[in-house]
């Protein structure tokens, strides 16, 4: 009995690490630039396709292609901030929401046109390997993904707290006007925030590739999880998003175990609606850090 529960919790935590990379990106952009990036899931998809093609054409292991996807998506993020998002920052909600929404639609449908709706998988030497802890079963690829995801999250935390640029980003997220008065260049900080957030999404894509299929709609799964985790963990709060993502992973996994295989999304929506109904400021109580 307890093995089943423990196994479900382990599965949930492992996939929750990937959710964390996506939702930390969403919450970082929201905290610093004050926009919601609807296209975050599509950047996970792009990361997956880059890893897939590198593995397929050149035999590069998806974990190694992390070194390609992260810089490439960092650059894409900077370009998107500089050429698109910068132009819609203002008091008006509509352009901000629908610009990244249009970007999401565009990337998704371009992928559909270029790569078709087929599922693409990469098989690695460790794809089918697993550790056994008594009755428990820990897939190697997922464990690697989880450890790398946690390491990247930790590195981001160190960056935000101990470097000048990181401190500038936190300052800009707390009070943009005062930060600007202190000599922080907002556009530069925003470019870096977008770059880091997209690099994390790209990393999520590469880490997923050994055990998950790439297809044009794959980002939608992760972005929905991320939005719920970001609301649950209080908007703009990086640690909150991390903890909430792990909780979401566990809740989804327990839902699949005890309610039914296709009930993962129902659990997610139920959690979102319950959060909105009873704690709309998130579990952190409205503090953005």
């Amino acid at each position, binding site marked *: 009995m307890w093995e089943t529960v423990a196994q479900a919790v382990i599965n949930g935590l492992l996939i929750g690490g990937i959710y964390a990379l996506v939702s930390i990106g969403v919450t970082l952009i929201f905290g610093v630039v004050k*926009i*919601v990036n*609807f296209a975050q899931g599509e950047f996970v998809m792009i990361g997956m396709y880059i890893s897939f093609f590198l593995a397929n054409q050149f035999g590069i292991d998806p974990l190694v292609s992390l070194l390609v996807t992260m810089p490439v998506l960092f650059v894409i993020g900077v370009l998107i901030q500089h050429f*698109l998002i910068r*132009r*819609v920052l203002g008091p*008006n*909600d*509509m*352009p*901000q*929401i*629908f*610009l990244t*929404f*249009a*970007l999401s*639609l*565009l990337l*998704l*449908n*371009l*992928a*559909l*046109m270029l790569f*078709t*709706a087929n599922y693409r998988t990469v098989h690695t030497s460790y794809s089918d390997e697993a550790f056994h802890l008594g009755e428990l079963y820990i897939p190697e690829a997922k464990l690697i993904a989880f450890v790398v995801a946690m390491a990247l999250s930790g590195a981001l935390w160190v960056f935000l707290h101990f470097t000048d640029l990181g401190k500038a980003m936190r300052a800009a997220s707390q009070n943009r006007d005062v930060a600007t008065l202190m000599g922080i260049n907002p556009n530069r900080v925003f470019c870096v925030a977008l770059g880091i957030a997209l690099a994390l999404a790209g990393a999520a894509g590469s880490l997923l590739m050994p055990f998950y299929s790439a297809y*044009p709609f794959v980002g939608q799964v992760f972005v*929905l999880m991320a*939005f*719920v985790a970001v*609301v649950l963990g209080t*908007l703009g709060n990086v640690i909150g998003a991390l903890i909430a993502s792990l909780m979401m992973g566990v809740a989804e996994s327990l839902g699949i175990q005890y309610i039914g295989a*296709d*009930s993962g*999304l*129902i659990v997610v*929506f*139920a959690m*979102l*609606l319950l959060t*909105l*109904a009873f704690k*709309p400021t998130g579990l952190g109580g409205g503090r953005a850090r």
Partner: protein
Amino acid sequence: MMAQGRRARGLLWLAIGIAILIALPQVVKSSFAIDIFIRILLFSFVGVAWNLMGGYAKQLSLGHAAYFGLGAYTSTILQVDFGISPWIGMVAGGVVAMLASLPIGWLCFRLRGPYFTIATIATAQALMLIFLKFRDLAWGAEGTTIPNLGSAPLMMQFETKAAYYYVVLALLALGLVITYLIERSWMGYYLVAIGEDEDAAEAIGVNAPKIKRDIYLISSFLTALAGTFYTQYIYFIDPATAFSFNISIEAALVSIVGGIGTLWGPVIGTVLLETTSTLLQSWLGGSIGGVQLTVYSLILMAVILWRPTGLMGVATEAWQRHVGRKPAQA
């Protein structure tokens, strides 16, 4: 005098437009063309319903498929299981949608801006999952076909496509009249005030939660009527079509591209987007998936970056330049 002349001219144009729209199916006999006209009128109507809340009050919902689907399912269940005419079912569907909008609004209106949008997406998706999962409620994922009774106007089934055309034309007219009346009432001004700055509107005494709730009721009622019509028109219903995310997207898109918060914006936007999509489909043969939404998203990005007021904004600017150049005649 001047205002009266402009008003008379406006009425004349409106009368000409109505006459053309009524005569259209008598002149154009191709059922392919009438099918496109019906799509344009239907999505204009959904856009008009969305625009009441999304456009005037700037509550940017991407979950209107929830009400489209509820309208479609209510009338279909009443018709298939109880033999009740879809004309009654249509109104019943509207009422069900209004009732559903109360708890959904209660949840979603707690959030502002992008998070309101996300919450509306989640509610529509959750409803779709409910209709997929609970087979006893409504046929599960397979959906059902509507029994074909041949020519039965009382059951909203017609032999010619032209009849469907007139039904949806009447729906669009209803939506436009309601928008026109609201635009000119105190409610219209309250909505625009909320859309511009909700805190400021509340500070000067606008009861924002009540106004938002009321406009959501009207908007969801109208959207549900479109759902019933669509199901009757295609003789088929399943959760993936009735609650399709594309309906939510199209409702918002046509309004933004045409001109958000304007009477004619959704109509103009639909004409542009649907025409583009039809031309693309006949050109590419519809063989490649994703082309239509790729083009839609490019148009949407172009509008947001260069003309956030939409095509109506472009037209208004052109008109003002025209009037400005000839002040003596005006």
